[in-house]
């Protein structure tokens, strides 16, 4: 079998395995979607409980539920959420739209900013400016996301009144949406860029000690040419792995940001579904994240092959 065929087989097997885990894990938790369906003040009679269990398909044995689960996936039917009163696909589509607006710009901006600045910081690590820059990024990287988000919200929204305190929008106009998203996107960009900055800085520091860098300098190339024409490409490999993960989890949302900025994105959706044992929503969300993670890994595999041909041999 060819290498490409083996890889595809490996990915398909991984998908099957993870999809099966997505079915098992929610059911392994104590309770089920009916446990807290109507709140703590409502006590249901046994007959009503039985009726609801049967409507939700919870009275069937696991084996039957598992077959139904695969039948749904193969027919692109993700089921119905009794907690959110809607088809799971509808819920996911509406949340993904907003989550993407929140996550995509920060992943892209964080990647560009962190990689570029990290490369420069690794190249000229002794300059006072780069040292200060590195300390600042390290500080951001070490700050708990919840705390930094609250601090930014306090300063820019509450004290300076530049941004709203919550939600994806108020009126729904494009400017209003941008206005609401700007601060959370900036905070997420800060986190993403600080992480990429630290990785890229370390990677460049390691690469620049190699012989090929010394050879390029001996050839009489300028600093920026050595960095961006030779070192950058080789130093990029660990960043590509991180970016593949970022893109993989782009639909999983950013729970802390969503909680601080009161945004109903995928992070909040998954958290609530976990708390209420909403199996269909959990399965649907995990399914999308799985597909994204596996696809992003496949893409990273291909990119790695291009950047470092040695990888293609394995």
């Amino acid at each position: 079998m060819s290498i490409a065929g083996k890889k595809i087989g490996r990915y398909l097997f991984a998908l099957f395995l993870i999809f099966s885990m997505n079915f098992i894990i929610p059911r392994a938790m104590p309770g089920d979607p009916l446990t807290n369906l109507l709140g703590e003040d409502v006590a249901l009679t046994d007959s009503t409980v039985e009726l609801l269990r049967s409507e939700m398909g919870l009275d069937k044995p696991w084996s039957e539920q598992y077959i139904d689960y695969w039948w749904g996936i193969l027919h692109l039917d993700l089921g119905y959420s009794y907690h959110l009163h809607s088809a799971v696909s509808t819920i996911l589509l509406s949340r993904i739209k907003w989550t993407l607006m929140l996550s995509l710009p920060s992943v892209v901006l964080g990647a560009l900013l962190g990689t570029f600045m990290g490369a420069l910081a690794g190249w000229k690590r002794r300059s006072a400016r780069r040292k200060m820059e590195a300390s600042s990024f390290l500080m951001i990287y070490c700050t708990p996301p919840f705390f930094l988000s609250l601090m930014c919200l306090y300063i820019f929204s509450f004290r300076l009144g530049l941004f709203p305190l919550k939600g994806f929008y108020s009126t729904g106009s494009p400017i209003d949406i941008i206005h609401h998203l700007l601060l959370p996107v900036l905070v997420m960009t800060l986190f993403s860029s600080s992480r990429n900055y630290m990785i890229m800085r370390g990677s460049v520091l390691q690469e620049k000690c190699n012989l090929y860098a010394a050879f390029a300098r001996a050839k009489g190339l300028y600093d920026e040419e050595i960095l961006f024409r030779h070192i950058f490409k080789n130093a990029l490999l660990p960043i590509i792995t991180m970016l593949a993960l970022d893109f993989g989890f782009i639909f999983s949302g950013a729970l802390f940001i969503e909680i601080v900025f009161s945004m109903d994105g995928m992070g909040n959706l998954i958290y609530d579904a976990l708390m209420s044992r909403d199996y269909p929503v959990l399965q649907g969300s995990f399914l999308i994240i799985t597909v994204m993670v596996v696809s992003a890994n496949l893409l990273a595999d291909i990119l790695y092959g291009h950047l470092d041909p040695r990888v293609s041999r394995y």
Partner: protein
Amino acid sequence: MRRDLYQMASALLLCFLILGTAVQAAGDSSGTTLKIGTPSTVKSASILGDTNMGVFAHLSNPTLMKMTSDGKVVGLTAKSAEVSEDGKTWRFLIKDDLFWSDGEKLTPEDVKFTFDYLAKNDPAADWMSTTIESISIDNGAVVFKLNKPYSRLSLEFATYPILDKRLWENIEKPIEYTNEGEMPGFGPFYIAKTDLGAGVIYFKKNPYWKGTQPKFDSIEIHTYSNIDVLSLALQKGDVDAYYKYGWMSYPYASIQRLKDTGNFDFVETDNTGMIFLGMNLKNEPMSDLSFRKAVSYALNYSEMLKLDALGYGQVPNAGFVPPSMAYFKETPRLEYNLTKAKEILADAGYKDSNGDGILEGKDGKDIKLNFLARTDYPRVNELVIGYLKDLGIECDEKSVDSSTWIKQKDAYGYDLTITRSTPWGMLMHANWGTGYFDSRRTGAGVLHVLDDPAFQKLCDDIMASTSDSQLEDYAAEVQDYYAENLPGIALYWNKVETPYNKAFDGWYSDPLYGIFNVDNFLSVEKTG
């Protein structure tokens, strides 16, 4: 080139800041809108399927009855309510000046339809199908014939919104029905829009409302996922008041900050719900009254009140039921006396014979209790475990989320737990918190640990009684029963603090839904 890049970035940032300020300024249109901020987030626009949405919808779809600030149940959609001597026939005369927001009159037929419909289709109202024999209309009144006396019908009817027959008769599964757009209402306001993305429920004034005119054209409910941000929103003026159902009070630790601004006042009421120590009476040694009494003496109530509620409340009585409930009876105040607690245990045969600091049970083994801790109450969990340790009882703490807690306590997989009662929880079943203890009720937040026939008979008597004086006697009996048998121990009775901007006045709160009641929104007005 790099300098150009920096200049471009600075210009871009400046543009964003200007845009931010401009959009913010454009949004500052106060008008005559009252804005309520709440941490009770709405997950779906389903007035029968989403608990919080259901509470908010009481403004557009009022209930048949309501609770007054002193805990009495009186008519809201109903003009009056009468019950037959045998407690089996209830007659609710419907007001004739109520109109839906599209101009159609609310009829007794709508009320009849609501309860027929809920009994048939709403799982939360399944008790109706086993209690109500028939519903009929007689001279503008809706008459309920029951198959057994049920004194609490009027109170139950203070929680279900009256539905528009024209809309709901075509909806087969009410808890699955969602509508983010306009919904006709016959209250002083109706739901104009539910915007889940913005986290706002918009109410507009019902143009056909004939009663006392509200002082606002619209009301907005703003939901916040984070309580700290909600506090900032209050201070900033984004919202005018705070509301939360269930554990209704504004966080005590944030009160001073609001007071310091000088812009806020508080509606202060006694909470009908509370945090309490629940015991699995089916297990030893919790089934032993002496043990429960010793535990009650081992808890430092003042300290818990001070540390967990920052002093906003009082040390509770052994009678469990808080003073905000109707027919409250003064029972002995719970007392912290560790020496006495140890004496009671020693007298009852619990001794530390091997000197390891842990008492042995009657079976001779060390007492190690399974403490099922809800993550909602970390501080009191820690305190109570500490007090029990001082008494010589070791606890194995298992910290769980809400769903796991329900599952575990339904399977009696615990010895001790700390949980809370909500205002409605205290009123449900036979009132006065009985719903939490009667073993015939299972599921949700109830402990169902009391199968004492005397207690269950008392519950049945309460539910069958329609005489106020008799109910008062029964209420006293229930509280005496709690005080003597300690099936649950209240940890403190707290105050509900509801902050509101001083620019508004006339706030009115009831023990069931706090400030979220029709009378409040007719009474509040802007003063500043």
